[in-house]
Structure formats: C-alpha cells, structure tokens
C-alpha cells in the first residue's frame, strides 16, 4: 500500500513540475494559436541562468528563478518581435517552424557558452525530503509544485480579472472586434507571448534543481510539454494541469507496476491514445474557427 501511495505522490509532484513547464506554452497556443517550439529551449536557458548564478554566488536557484522571470519576459518580447510576429503574418505554420529553428540555435549557443557537461544545481534541499508517516515528499519537488500552483493561479487570475487578461481573450476570439473597442492587438499579443516566456523563469530554475541537464535537454522537455498540452487540450490552463498530472502519474505508475523501461515511452503512448480517442484533448473544446478559450 505504501508503494502505491508513495508512487502516486511522486507522480503528482512530477506532474506539478510538468504543469509548471507547460502553462506558458498552453496559454500562448490557446490565445495566439502559436505553437512555440522554443519554449523548451527557454526553460533550459532559464535553468542554465539559475544554475550559473547559484554556482557563482550561492543564491538559492529557485530564488534566482523568480528574479530572472522579468529577464525571460524580455527574452519573450524580443523573440516575438524579431521572429514570431514577422513570420506569423506571412504564414501561421511557419511560426512553429521558425520557433523550432530558434530552439536549435539556442541549444548551440548555450553549448558554446556553458559547454556540454551535465549540470545541476545542488542547494541544500536538492536531495532531502519531508517525512509524512511512511511516505516521503522530496523537498525540491514540493517547492516546484507550490511554484506551479502559484504560477497557474496567477495566470488564471490575470486572464479572468484584469483588463489585460480580458483584452488577451478578446484578441484570441476576434481581432477586428477587439480593435474596435480600442485594444491594440499587436501589442497585446506581444505581451501575451512574453508572459508565456516569463513562466519559464521559475520553471527553468525548478528544472536545474530537480533534474540534470545539458543544452540539448530542450528536445526532451518540449516533447513532454507537447504531450501535456495535447493530452489536456491545447489552450486550456486547467487542461494543462490535468494533462500534467496524468503524465506524471502515468510515468510513475508505469515505472513501479509495469516496467521501468516503458516509463520513458509513456508521453508518446499517451499522445497516440488521446489523438485516437479524443483529438481535442480532455478539456479542449471543439476548436472554433475564430479562436480558443483559456
């Protein structure tokens, strides 16, 4: 019984990490219909920055993650302006391809700056756990989980309760009507993209503490993120949370009860299953021609 409880807890905690990574990506797609394949590279960049600052100064990497959130916001703004916006005007799908190009280039640049050795940040809590009866809760994962809740909550609050959030949702439905109420559509889109990028600050910091990483790790992570959002429904924040939980639990349960070798195949199996059974994802509405929901 302990094995099951512990496995479920570990699975949910990992799910929290996945939700953290995927929230920004899901939002950008839901609102702007842009599949930003550079999202994984931004997470790895944030991971490198968090690890690097921690390595040099000893400042807690998760704290660094919070501090570099505005940095990643700026990175997002720049990326949108220089690449995405230009390409998106010409061809929607091309934006996805362009973002993948950016990801590959970013991987190369990171390798040049920091080398290809395996890195990971090891603050005091990186390998310790809280004890709850016979069950352990790894500390770093718990902090990441808390961060995920905070970020998802903040994004939700932003979209529902602020003018920016309403403007973003309006733009995603109908750009012309949004313009007619005085919303500057291009600027709002840029802000949305940058907010999605900003979430990678803490996400990358969590990655640096919980996992080992190299510049090329972004391939693995964009794969997991895609699984989470396809599973949960592209464009739904709640869907991303749900998809992340399912993926985390799926991997943990498969590892403990089926076969450890199959655990890494779980994301791909889930993608295939959901596309066959319910292609819009668990919480994805029927995709409307004029927009999406968040």
């Amino acid at each position, binding site marked *: 019984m*302990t*094995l099951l409880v*512990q*496995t479920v807890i*570990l*699975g949910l905690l*990992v799910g929290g990490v996945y939700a953290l990574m995927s929230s920004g990506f899901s939002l950008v797609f839901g609102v702007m219909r842009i599949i930003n394949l550079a999202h994984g590279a931004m997470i790895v960049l944030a991971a490198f920055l968090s690890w690097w600052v921690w390595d040099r100064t000893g400042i807690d990497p998760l704290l660094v993650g919070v501090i570099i959130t505005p940095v990643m916001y700026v990175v997002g703004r720049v990326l949108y302006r220089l690449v995405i916006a230009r390409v998106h005007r010409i061809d929607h799908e091309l934006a996805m391809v362009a973002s993948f190009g950016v990801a590959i280039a970013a991987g190369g640049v990171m*390798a040049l700056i920091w080398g*290809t*050795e*395996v890195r990971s940040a*090891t603050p*005091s809590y*990186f*390998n*310790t*756990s809280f*004890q709850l009866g016979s069950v*352990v809760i*790894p500390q770093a*994962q718990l902090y990441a989980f808390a961060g995920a809740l905070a970020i998802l909550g903040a994004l939700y609050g932003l979209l529902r309760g602020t003018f920016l959030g309403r403007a973003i949702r309006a733009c995603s439905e109908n750009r012309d009507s949004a313009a007619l109420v005085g919303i500057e559509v291009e600027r709002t889109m840029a802000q949305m993209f940058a907010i999605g990028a900003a979430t990678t600050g803490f996400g990358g910091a969590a990655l640096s503490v*919980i*996992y*080992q990483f*190299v510049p*090329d790790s972004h391939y*693995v992570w964009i794969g997991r993120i895609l699984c989470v959002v396809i599973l949960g429904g592209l464009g739904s924040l709640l869907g991303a949370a749900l998809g992340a939980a399912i993926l985390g639990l799926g*991997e*943990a349960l498969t*590892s*403990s009860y089926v*076969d*450890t*070798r199959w*655990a*890494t*195949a779980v994301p791909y199996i889930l993608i295939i299953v959901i596309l066959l059974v319910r292609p819009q994802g668990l919480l994805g509405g029927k995709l409307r021609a004029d927009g999406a929901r968040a």
Partner: protein
Amino acid sequence: MRRPVNRLRTGSALVALLALTTACGLAAEKPADQATSTEPIVIGMSLPLSGPVADRAKPGMEGYQYWVDELNAAGGLLGRKVELKVLDDSFDQQTAISDYTRLISQDKVDLLLGTFSSDLNIAVAPVAERYKYVYVQPSGGADEIFARDFKYLFFAQPATTQKLPDRFVDLIAGLPADQRPKSLALVQLDDPNTTQAAKLFGERLGALGVKTVYNKTYAPDTSNFDTIANAIKQAKPDLVINGSIAGDGISLIRSFQKVSFSPKQFYQLNTPTDPSFAKSIGASSTEGIFTYLAWSPEAKYPSNAGFVAGYTKQFKAAPSEDAANSYTAGQVLATAVKAVGKLDQTAIADWLHKNTVETVVGPLNWDATGRPQGDMLLGQFQNGKLQIVSPKSAATSADVLFVKPGWSGS
C-alpha cells in the same frame, strides 16, 4: 588539306594525355610503407561527445589525446606524425555505424580506434570486421560483442563483462553464510554491458544464497529515478547493484537520498570511476560504495607511473579510468604497428593474437575472438578515496567495509 594537320594535333594531344595519366598513375602507386614521412598517419574514430554520456566521453577523448601527443613527441609511428580524426555520434548506434563506415571507405583512414560503451561498440565492431580493419576498443566489455568470431577485434581492458563480477562474488563467498547479504536488488540501464553483468551477478550471488527481490532495467533517457528508488526501497534489499553507465548512477543515488533509503551494501558499475563522482554526490556519501576497475593509478606496471604523471601535467587533473582505457587502446595499437613495421591490418591482427602487450593495466593478451585473458579489480570508496580491495596483489587497502554507512548531507 586540313585533316592531316588536325590528326597531328589530336595525336599529340592524345600522347600528352597518355603521358600525364601514366605519370599520375605511377605517382599513386607508391606502396604504403614507402610513403613520405611528411604524410601523417590518420587514425579515425567516432565518439559519443554529445548526448547522454558526454560527461564520460570527455575524459575518454582526453586519454586518446594524451596518447597521441605523447606518441608524436617521441617521433610518431613508423617515423610519421599521427593525427586523430574524430567524429561525434551523440551516443546513437546508427550514427556511429555510418561514421566508421565513412572513415573507412570514404576518408580511407590508416587505422581505427574504438568508441565508448558496449552499446556503440557492438554496432561498430562488425563494420571494422567487414572492411578488415583492426579495431582496438577501450570500453565495450559485453560478451555479445566477442561472440561473433571476429578476427580484427581487440578489447583494451583486462577482461570482458563475463569476468566482471568475479572479485565481488568471491568477496561475498568468502563470508560465512550468516553474514552474507540476504537479498539483492538489481537495477541497470539498458545496455549490453550492464544487463549482462546484472544477469551474472544475479545467478552467481543466487548460488550463494542471495535472493533477488527486485530486478528492473531502465531506458537510457530516464531522467527521474524517484519512483524507481522508492520501489527498490519498498523491496528492502540488503545489497543493491546498479548497472549504471554515466549520469544515471548519480541520479539514482540522489533519488535514494530523497526517499531516505540507504542499502547495507551498494555496488555501482562505471559511474564511480568518473573523477567528478565524489563532487556530484558529496564525498562523505561515497563511503563504502563498491565498483570494478580495469585500471588503478597506483598499479606498478612499467608505463603507468609515466602515464599518470604526464597526463596530470597536461590536463591539470589526475586521469580517470576512462582516460586510462583509451590510453591503453592506443598503447595496444601502437605496439603492434611498431612490431609489424607497416600499416598492414591483417599482419597487425595476427601479431596481436600471438603476442602480449605491456600496458598501464598490465600485460594484455587475447583469445582468438579478441577477449582479453586478465581480470578486473574490485574497488571501494574509503574516506573519500577509491581504494583497490581485491586482488591482494594490487590492493591499496587491506580493509573492506561490509556495511555502508547511511547517506550524509551533500
């Protein structure tokens, strides 16, 4: 009246062309052993420099680098400088195969040296064999590699995986029955070397009364070991043997720490011999961990002291097992080429089958299919340092810790 003039012109053009072709042909026919000493000997290799085992490929590459630098400083091979032509296969079998094929058939390198890990070597060895190139490799010990009757394949460590468990099993066998570990967990990466070792450990320890309570293989791209660590913890084994290759071993130990599980005895393949091991998990956490080694820096073999000193001077850090294995492969190849006197692959292979080569891991000789006839060493971390505890003739420490202390803070 034009034709005769044209014929003359065409004729002289043809003669000139013929002469030119002959001259080129003559120039190209120079036999290999009479090549000018200004042309370097090119040795080709494809290594997993990027990808999941990049952190271990680096010292391995440095071992090759040091070997070739030392060789060239002493005059090179057969009076010629030696150059390494290195490709990166990112730990992918298909890439490694096509890399070596290209090096042989397109780039026409003079010699080959082997890549790292059983997983890659098992794929590349047939390529070298098909083209009849001597293939000395430093790092693929799985028996499968040597089961195909290859004449050009040679392993540059003292023994293959078949003999890997010997010393540790003997150690356990030497204990009275009631002091032996009662239960065993086997957890290994999906690789021919580690899965074979796991199988052998399970069988041979089982014969000594050690029951296997957990046995799982994980994919090379596994990044989160918490669930695995937890499952092992629930199985309550006395002894855990982890067939790791590189960073996966570190991740598993960290996950053990996270789920608060410390086995009474812990044996880990490969990972502990990396120089950054103590730093990665904390020096005090290494206490009592067993591993096997092909090479020890203190071993008294003739070329060893020079290798350790020279390598340390060049790289500002002591050599690791991986570096030593690469250096050994270089030694084997160079010795054979010098003895034969020419770049004749078949002659080199024959010579290696008939002779013994003195290396930093001791004297090496091989059976007909490339298996070395020596034995591995058993090592254990004591007080932050990796000591040799078996065999007695090479031991650097007379003590053996039979109970591993718990993990301490990092």
